[in-house]
């Protein structure tokens, strides 16, 4: 009977899987960039949008957090071309990669909006008053006093959201985008699933390693943010 776990196969498959790492990181960074912009807008409207816009923002956040990611992906993948067709553009020829990024960005923006809102609200009101008392305008106070504190407060929860996003990218292959998980499925298919355990242990370790590096970076940033300012 053949080996149940082939160490040599495990060693050989890791570089093959790593060749898809740029695709996964590309999806994460692009989704995060768009998600941060959307999340910031949603959080700002939720806090200061007045009775109507605040409710619309609350609904947006609730919807993006409440809809399963795979359902949102299918909605964007099938719905966006239909919408474009309705608006008079050509349907059915949209590349998958941007649609996958749009799905992830929409999903993560809901979580990031709540991360940002809670971080902003966690800054004590006396900090606004202190900024005012030394002659700063509202915007100056926000940029120089509130924002740096809010960012530091937000780091742990944003870190969790980004880790969740990294793992969620494993769904990108549902639409045929070859990320690490997609690469694993294709390699697995090439040998009829005979070395499935080795492949998916390797996949798990790669995702964990990426998340571990991110955790360390966030730890460093958090420690740096919490360092008291030295005066003089």
């Amino acid at each position, binding site marked *: *009977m*053949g080996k149940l776990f082939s160490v040599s196969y495990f060693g050989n498959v890791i570089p*093959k899987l790593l060749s898809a790492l*740029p*695709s996964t*990181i*590309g*999806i994460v*960074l*692009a989704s995060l*960039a768009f998600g941060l912009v959307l999340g910031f807008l949603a959080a700002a409207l939720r806090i200061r949008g007045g009775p109507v816009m605040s409710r619309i923002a609350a609904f947006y956040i609730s919807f993006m957090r409440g809809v399963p990611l*795979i359902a949102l992906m*299918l909605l964007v*993948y*099938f719905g966006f*071309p*239909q919408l474009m067709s309705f608006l008079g553009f050509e*349907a*059915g020829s949209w*590349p*998958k*990669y*941007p649609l996958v*990024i749009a799905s992830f960005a929409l999903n993560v923006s809901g979580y990031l909006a709540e991360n940002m809102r809670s971080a902003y609200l966690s800054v004590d009101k006396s900090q606004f008053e202190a900024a005012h008392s030394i002659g700063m305008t509202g915007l100056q106070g926000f940029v120089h006093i509130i924002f740096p504190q809010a960012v530091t407060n937000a780091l742990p929860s944003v870190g969790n959201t980004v880790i969740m996003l990294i793992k969620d990218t494993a769904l990108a*292959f*549902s*639409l*045929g*985008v*070859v990320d690490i998980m997609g*690469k694993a*499925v*294709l390699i*697995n*298919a*090439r*040998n*009829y*699933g*005979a*070395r*499935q355990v080795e492949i998916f242990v390797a996949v798990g370790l790669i995702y964990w390693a990426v998340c571990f590096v991110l955790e360390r970076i966030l730890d460093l940033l958090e420690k740096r943010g919490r360092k008291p300012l030295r005066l003089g």
Partner: protein
Amino acid sequence: MKMRSRKILAGVTALALCLVLTACGSSQSAATPSPSPSPTETPQQVIKVGMMATLKPFVYTDDSDNIIGYDIDMLNAIDELLPDYTFEYQNLQFSVLFTSLENGTVDMLTGTIGRNAEREAKYLVPSIDSGYVVSSLVVPEDDTATNSFDDMAGKKIPMDPARYEYNVMKEYNDEHPDKAMVIVEMADVTQADSMKMVADGRCDAALIYRDSFEEIQKELDLPVRMSDVYAVKQPYCQLINPSLTEFGAKYEEALQTLIDNGTMSQISVKWLGYDMFADN
């Protein structure tokens, strides 16, 4: 400090853009580009073909993620016979395959797709089968008595309910209640996993593609054997968007030509090791 932050931000943004552009490029590498027509040529109509490229040897990917296999050689041969059309291949997962055809994201589906009345009513289905998937029972090597479904009364066999063979087995059970087998329903169970389940006694038999058995055994060397009896011979076909009637007719004509001139037999021998058209 501010300057440094800006530099870091600029660096991260540039890296993200590079990665996105690189990935966008690689994600389209499997697609066949349509050649640009010369002023005198009629532009070729692009037929987008969706498939689940995890079905070795019919449709799967090589080390560079190019889609290859029996179906691709067949489609490339058909492409050569149809100068007005060019094929573009898209790797999709099962969850989006049929909806992609329905909403026009792709024009045709391929990859061991079984023929049934529901599909024939909904899509344009060529009347000619483009191939056959032949499966036999794999049982423990000391079990010489189990060779066909008739020997499976009360015995356990794993099967993915999304597979064509699942329906064949259900129909067999309905028609032969006294010989009914116990179908262990498992989503996405691979052929290798099914064989492992037989080897370790969790199931009594597995239904395995005849061309896959030796390949899996080379890797795992399990204490199992394959029956010489064909348990399921599944004819398969392509599904075409019903609006493409002219293309559908030309496609069917081209496929018949390839069967008649022996090209399909050659492709079959190349990928499966035998001529699946020999008896048909």
